[in-house]
């Protein structure tokens, strides 16, 4: 199986005309939403309907009373497009807060990957050696396979998956990014 590192975009890159010549860059958006039926469809529909990119997306309730969910979206675009994405999210009725963590200064964005490697002999030993170097944990082990669990920044996960490719990489499952700002500041 051939595996290309990095998730393919769910939506084709925006073809809408963009006045600015500024280069596209990656942004991590965190969105606090009312935890109600259809809210995820509303957010995702906004991205596809307006031709914005989604590179990864995570969502789960975060408030103790279950009233709010946090959606973390990794997207890309020129600064003008990223600002439009923020404004379009903000105007949605069930959206309580939107923040572009990339512009808020320093932030932590981490995700988890599960990697299944099916191999024997030299390749198997090498896979285990690399997993140790990355501090990945073997969460399932058989005579011919491993499932490794690794948490960290997305580019670290990319390199891990890339290194496993010639060593019997069989299947990959990634969570997408969870992100918070550094320091005492909150969303």
């Amino acid at each position: 199986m051939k595996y290309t590192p990095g998730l393919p975009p769910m939506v084709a890159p925006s073809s809408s005309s963009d006045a600015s010549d500024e280069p596209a860059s990656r942004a991590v958006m965190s969105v606090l939403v009312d935890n109600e039926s259809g809210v995820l469809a509303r957010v995702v529909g906004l991205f596809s309907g307006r031709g914005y990119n989604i590179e990864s997306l995570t969502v789960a309730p975060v408030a103790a009373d279950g009233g709010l969910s946090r959606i973390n979206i990794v997207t890309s675009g020129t600064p003008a497009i990223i600002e439009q994405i923020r404004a379009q999210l903000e105007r949605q009725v069930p959206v309580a807060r939107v923040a572009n963590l990339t512009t808020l200064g320093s932030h932590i964005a981490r995700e988890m990957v599960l990697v299944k490697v099916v191999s024997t002999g030299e390749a198997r030993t090498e896979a285990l050696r690399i997993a140790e170097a990355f501090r990945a944990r073997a969460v399932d082990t058989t005579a011919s396979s491993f499932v490794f669990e690794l948490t960290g920044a997305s580019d670290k996960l990319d390199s891990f998956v890339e290194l496993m490719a010639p060593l019997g990489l069989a299947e990959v499952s990634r969570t997408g990014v969870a992100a918070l700002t550094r320091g005492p500041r909150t969303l």
Partner: protein
Amino acid sequence: MNATTQMTATHSRTATTLTGAEVLMRVLVDQGVEVVFGYPGGAVLPIYDALFQQDRIRHILVRHEQAAVHAAEAYARSTGRVGVVLVTSGPGATNAVTGLLDALMDSVPVVCLSGQVPVPLIGNDAFQEADTTGITRPVTKYNYLVKRPEDLAPVVNEAFEIARSGRPGPVLVDLPKNITVGPAPYAPPSGATRRSYQPQTEPDREAVARAVAAMKKAKRPLFYVGGGVINSGPQACADLTRLIHMTGFPCTETLMGLGAFPASDRQFIGMLGMHGTYEANLATHDCDVLIALGARFDDRVTGRVDAFSPHSFRIHADIDPSQINKIIHVDVPVVGDAGRTIAMMIEAWEADATRPDQAALKTWWTRIDAWRGLDCLRFTQDQAPDAVIKPQQAIRRIYELAVETGRDTFVSTEVGQHQMWAAQFFKFEKPNHWLTSGGLGTMGYGLPAAVGAQVAHPDALVIDVAGEASTLMNIQELGTIAQYRLPVKIFIINNHYMGMVRQWQELLHGSRYSESYSDALPDFVKLADSFHAKGFRATKLSELDDTIRAALEHDGAAVIDICVAEGENCFPMIPSGAAHNEMILGPEQEAQGARITDEGKMLV
């Protein structure tokens, strides 16, 4: 994502048990609803039964659900209240989709109540089931599926609040039949909305001060006014007039903004954009300070974006922050209600004693008056009695003869050439009297819109300026007009073509009139007759005025078939992909159309 509904349960305070449908009636009365436009069906039978048993709310039975939404839009736009629509599940809801998007694009407050199959059947492909909230999510400001009886009253109350507040828009509430049949607790409106929905209405004083400072220094200023000012209300329009008089600046308006400032005022220089006036577009191009109020730099307005108003310092006031810097970069953004912004601008203008450069303003007006002197809306009408009527002549005479009646007049249009000519020739002195489909450009809007306006204003003169192609898209509403004896006047500017399509084919596609000829048209006079209305027809110039007068004097509904010149095009025009100072003024310059690039062609 887990599917819990979020509304807090408000427990019943009434002793008697009401059905959901009865609760709905109470909530509608609480919201001040007097009229509902709708069409019954299986899933809304309990609601129709509750309607039958009360006399506070009037129901207008349309002939197609799309028309119900357009009628509610016109009701809303001509009264400033929320329009209400009631449709059944499945096809009832899907037929309403075009109307909902029309209302979203033009920021019209509408609440659409749709029936749904009972909750236990949802997802089973039940009869007349549709995923209505899924289908309508991108065409509404917000929508709901009511799954629990205790959510019904709070949801419907919140729907009204969301529809009318902030940037107004359509809100849909999907009502499963078990909710309307079964018992539900009543709750009075609390006026509160969820914490996550807090539109900013109060503008930032500092931003307004920066805007006014720029206005004071302007040498070539221009107000660019959109529908947001009309949405803000009559007071906002009165204040706008004051501000414009105070400053002495010229004012142009978008299609949706017509009527915000009196058209007869010397400081009004006409509509801007693709079919706007020469003076408005050149002023937009050459101004040094552009003050956009409640407008959104639509592509019909801007033309080529990189050539739009290239020398101006731009101020943009809008209640919707996502409109700011979306298409055109602005120097001073002001987020807030247009009316509040204008009032604050007046304060700041008066507080600062500096007077703008009067000499520069005078020079600016001299230039504008020179552009005006070109009389860009002129056309030539052969004055022989047997002459073929020019569509421009027909529309101008409808306007002038309507003014002669001295009656309060509401004008709706369909979409196309006649719509643009109506926008050019009708002079609106007041807001809320011009009803047209701007953002979505929905053919078939005008006839049901006339229904909504006449229902809201039974004693007013309501005119639909129509094209023969557009009007056939919702011609069934002649039945509604007959049933409620609505004396609307439908003027069909009949050129046997989808005129705007034909114009573009002439300009961009070598005059290959692919499918744009209106073949096999009905006899509109006989059609009127069969729908219990009176039909009129004018085929030559000598018949035009008398026919219009007779139709305006007729005390019932009238359909007037005005047979006009087939080949006439709508000018002035900014061809697609061109800048404001590259207008085509008339047929003699049409060859410029040939220069339109492929890129321009793609812009539609």
